């Protein structure tokens, strides 16, 4: 396997990158960390004539908290930068842990959160936990920007609402009432394994009453999906093991997994049940972990 020929342009600004993407059309592809784009080029599953790099745009690396807005994560923050961010660790250890369990250290050092989202791979680890926490994404082009909920971003495997000239620049986790959140990537070994099933939950607890819950499943549908029946079941209820098991069953029933070399549909569905229940319990008991 060998990289095909392509032109490489390092864009100086987001606007310039957007203009290039717009003028070159579908034959141009944005590249950040390259942990997804380069293997696809080598395997011949992505044909592109020009790669437009945004790696020099260090302003897109910031991770910060702004009162009234929430936690802001620049799209170029690497997985390791997300994992090590004191701002995130203070509030959303669940997001840091998600980063920590991704791929391996080499990839975590170079892969970016923006890439993990905009590739729209069904098994991606960041989208479920970010959707559960109500995150928004900002898409920018040369004429302006728009912000939308991450939940509405995905259209299908490797398909999203992002336009050819748009660049994902930042992710915002707004201030919210969730008391706990967690993500579990169920992979087939402890490191360097893609999710067979990913389950993220965010919960708002008052004593033993679940005031609100958001459950997002990864790798079991063409896009990350909410398990809304399970969420509805939990709202306003006193939590018991039986209730959580029932929520797990509803989530499993709502999921739409496929059979592939990593697992069968049947297995994936049952793992949704198990990990929905376990994640709910963990987030209810331990906060943002």
């Amino acid at each position, binding site marked *: 396997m060998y990289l095909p020929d392509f032109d490489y342009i390092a864009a100086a600004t987001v606007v310039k990158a957007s203009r290039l993407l717009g003028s070159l059309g579908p034959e141009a592809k944005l590249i950040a960390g390259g942990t997804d784009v380069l293997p696809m080029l080598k395997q011949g599953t992505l044909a592109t004539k020009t790669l437009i790099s945004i790696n020099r745009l260090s302003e897109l690396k910031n991770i910060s908290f702004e009162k009234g807005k929430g936690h802001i994560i620049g799209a170029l923050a690497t997985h390791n930068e997300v994992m090590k961010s004191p701002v995130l660790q203070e509030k959303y250890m669940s997001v840091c842990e998600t980063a920590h369990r991704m791929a391996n250290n080499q990839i975590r050092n170079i892969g970016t959160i923006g890439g993990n989202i905009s590739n729209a791979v069904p098994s991606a680890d960041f989208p479920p936990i970010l959707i559960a926490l109500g995150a928004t994404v900002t898409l920018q082009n040369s004429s302006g920007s728009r912000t939308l909920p991450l939940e509405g971003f995905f259209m299908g495997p490797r398909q999203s609402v992002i336009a050819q000239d748009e660049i994902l620049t930042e992710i915002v986790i707004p201030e919210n009432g969730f008391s706990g959140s967690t993500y579990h990537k*169920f992979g*087939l*070994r402890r490191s360097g394994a*893609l999710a067979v099933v990913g389950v993220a939950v965010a919960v708002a607890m008052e004593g033993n009453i679940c005031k609100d819950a958001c459950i997002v499943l990864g790798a079991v549908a063409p896009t990350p999906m909410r398990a809304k029946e399970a969420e509805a079941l939990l709202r306003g209820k006193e939590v018991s093991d039986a209730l959580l098991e029932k929520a797990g069953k509803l989530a499993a029933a709502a999921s739409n997994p496929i059979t592939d*070399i*990593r697992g069968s549909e049947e297995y994936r569905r*049952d793992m949704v049940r*198990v990990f929905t229940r376990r994640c709910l319990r963990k987030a209810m008991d331990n906060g943002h972990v």
Partner: protein
Amino acid sequence: MMEGKFSVIGKSKPRIDGRVKVTGQAKYTGDLKLSNMLVGKILTSPHAHAMILKIDTTEAQRQPGVKAVITHEDVPDLKYGISPARWDENIFCIDKVRFVGDKVAAVAAIDEETVYKALALIKVDYELLPAVFDPIEALQEGAPLVHEQCPGNVNTEIHQNFGDVEKAFAEAYYVRTDTFVGQRTYQCPIEPHSAISVWEGGKLTVYSSTQSPHYFQYYIARQFGLKMGDVRVIKPHMGGGFGGKLEPTGLEFAGAALAMRTGRPVKMFYDRHEMFAHNRGRHKQIMKVTTGVDKHGKILGVHADFIMDGGAYTSLGVATAYYAGAMLPLTYEYENYKFDMIRAYTNLPACGAQRGHGHPQPRYAYECHLDMLAKDLGMDPLELRLINTRKPNTVTPNDFRVNSCELEACLKKAKEISGWEEKRKNLSSGKGIGLAVGSFVTGAGYPIYRTDLPQAAAMIKVNEDGTSATLYTGAVDIGQGSDTILCQMAAEAMGFTYEQMKIVSADTETTPHDFGAYASRQTLMSGAAVKQAGEEVKQQVIEMASMMLQTDYRDLECREGVIWRKTDPSVTITYAAVARDFFVRKGPLVGKGSYTPPKLGGTFKGAPVGTSPAYSFCAQISQVDIDEETGEIKVEHVWDVHDCGTVINPALLHGQVHGALFMGMGEAVWEEVVFDDKGKILNANLGEYRLPTALDMPNITSELVFSPEPEPAGPWGVKEVGEGSTIPTMGCYSNAIYDAMGVRVYSLPLSYEKVWRALKEKREHEQQK
């Protein structure tokens, strides 16, 4: 200095290549750059089974920078393989391709980029043929024929019968049969295969990442009609082989042809995907085992009835097929043994030798089967094994002579250090403890091709001023540390110091012949030659010292570079002084040695496979924690107790145990090469072909037991360790899973999903009751 039986062996001396490896100075084949060197690549088949109608290389030839494009028309059409009856491979396919990855053509060009572009420009017209991917289907009437000359796709058929198994079963108190399935796995050495061929003045030099420079020299000379003396194979530093680099890889042949055609050095290599496609990894085996026991649990007879998927070519698979059954009777004593095997051709990559050669899967099957027998009999599985354990100085039903054998001691020690009895009773829910044993050859009794060459030879030259000595050996360090331990053995035998040893190894021109790194042979076989060479040096040194000190040679002792008078240890002289004097007076101080095993084994068909001068034994116990909802397997601890004879370097030995366990564990739980319905590999990368990671590894206790009488066949009583430790692991884990959850998974790998499914079926079954 003068205390203890040994001065140099038995100590964890640092690796002789450690410093250059950790500093990055060590050069592997892929690192080498020769002046004017071209880069070469092989074009492989995208189809599992197809006729080649036409190969058009015109466009590729025209590509600027391309120096040669070759197909079968440009190379000798002589078939090669492991044995004359089964020579079935050509350098390039002639009429048809037999698997996705079969070799069709090759290009040499000025750089890698140009090579890939040229490969894409070679036009091959194929006519697709029906293909077969399953060994059982391949053996059915009417299945597509992988090789026209081989009816029924039967590559190897074995029927061995010792004693009277039918009678044993008829007289048995209890007879049980089980069927298990092993899977295709791949060795995944970290260093990819590569070879650099240089054709200069009628001589071909090949630098290659190979486990056996000698076999490559033999095969290359044979293919191209060269004298062996005109072919030199050199093995630079190497990053693993595990059996996958023991036979020609195609890179040497194509590279040699391209180097001859262009007159320039050609570097050939496989990328990770191509390594998987070339394969030569573990066979898939379908294993039916039957055992009859008396009412005490004594085994009366065993029948092993196996089918294996060989892939498209023989590779080393005939040997694998024989090994699969040959080694089963090593661990338990019984008289009656029957072994049936068919190795089928399929349109998948050819399988070959992988660590434990043919034996780990049958051992998995048999150790699971024994545990189930024990349960039927209401016996502790460890007690059942103790009743049947092989004893020293016995002969197996298939005529293997076993000298030292401490399997019983291995079992007892494993039982003690693991807390077996306590844990069998009191482990908490979800946890279990399991046991399996293993045994392996310390070198194959016979070489791969018929020859009367000695197995190993060595030469030691003490350098002229006497301050260092160089060991010349054909033995091959593929990462396991043979250069280190052979220098320790040389120093011990010479009475010299390890720190002043140098080594030149694995170069067919400068080092004496050795068959290489496979079948766990080098410590015993290469070591025997090295010991002899060292003793020859020592004798000459003592004779010279006797002259210099005016002392009877019988009164002189020599160790760690010093010679002294036994009756008056204050009279000493240094090795260096004696060696220097020797050189001045007599010329080079050289010792040489060679090793040929005694005649081994019986006379029946296939009798040589499995013969060995000595056998290692081991017992392994593992403790697992199973997630009953997900089937996830966490291995908490493994206790490995090995009878591997005298230890040369404890650190390297335990490193082998850890590495073998890592590999056995991968095959037990994760690893499997998976294909789509067109014969294309779905997981030819290290992301989806899951080797264990550091986080998956358990705690390991690696212990040894020693025979009261050292193994007589090995120098200082050494035996193997490198492959033996990989053998029990799969059965050991399966038995631990059973102990934890009461479910049995009948096929490898014991994946999370399979365990989950078995648990689900068990629950459903219990609910029906």
